């Protein structure tokens, strides 16, 4: 197991971050609507956090 195991998770996180940042400067979207869009993606964010945790645990188990 290597640090690169985080790369695919980082990739989707970057995509989420960039889209989320675009949302705040998008014409025609109110701050409330931008907030709703961000809240909608909470399941994805939870999955990302859990995946990071899973990879971390795998690394730890391998070291032990």
């Amino acid at each position, binding site marked *: 197991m290597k640090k690169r195991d985080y790369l695919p998770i980082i990739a989707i996180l970057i995509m989420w971050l960039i889209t989320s940042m675009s949302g705040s400067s*998008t014409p*025609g979207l109110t701050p409330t609507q931008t907030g709703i869009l961000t809240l909608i993606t909470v399941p994805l964010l939870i999955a990302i956090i859990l995946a990071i945790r899973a990879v971390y645990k795998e690394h730890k188990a391998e070291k032990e």
Partner: protein
Amino acid sequence: MAFPPPDPAFWDRILWLWKGLAPWDPIILFRDIFPVFIAILCLYHSYKTFGWWKTTLFFVGSFLFTSLEENVWILVGYFSGTPTYYFSPEQYYLWFGVCPLSVAIGWFFISYSVVYIATKLFKNRGVLTRAAVGGLLAMNLDLMVDPIAVRNLWWAWPQAETLATQQTTFWILGIPVTNFIGWFLLIFFFAILWEKVPPKEETWKRKKTTGVFFLYLAGLLGLTLLILVGAQILIAVLHVGGLNIGDPYFPIWWGGP
């Protein structure tokens, strides 16, 4: 949202990689190139984890599967006279048919990432569970991407422009529901294919496995399109039957398309 239809020259240049309709803009350049950098992260991970053959299968497979689906869906709309959606020719430099190259590359790293996350979270579950989770995660991301994209005029859903077509489509956040079904199906089917076929290499050998992989890919592409057409027809039939699920102003808190 009113959106000018693409320059007629766009349709004459379907096969051009560079359509020459986008003005010079560093933001457009960034949007075209940035997905390549994210894709490189996934390609590197895939190469180190699975080797070059499986990496090529995933990259070429996901690229072709998703971008051909985009192309067919857009061109069917264009040639049938009832436009489905289109990408703005003024917003991208490089194209694969009528789909921007950056979108096709985006499909690769999104599918790679969500399939990877699903594998990490549900490694002890069946293939179908992992594929469904991957599809749902991708669809969840698109619930944010699409409403932002249409307001930035990166792409457009022309059905949003007339009341008649608005009412024969079921909208979520101003986007036709068939779009989200499409996102789910593409990742779901591809994830199943990815888990089922490449491991057969040991018994089938590499050449046969590659052939079978792409053969199934073509079949799944047809199946995805059939389901999407079916869903669209079902929504229209329900509308004619009086069930107005295509009310463009639902939900009220979001507003119309």
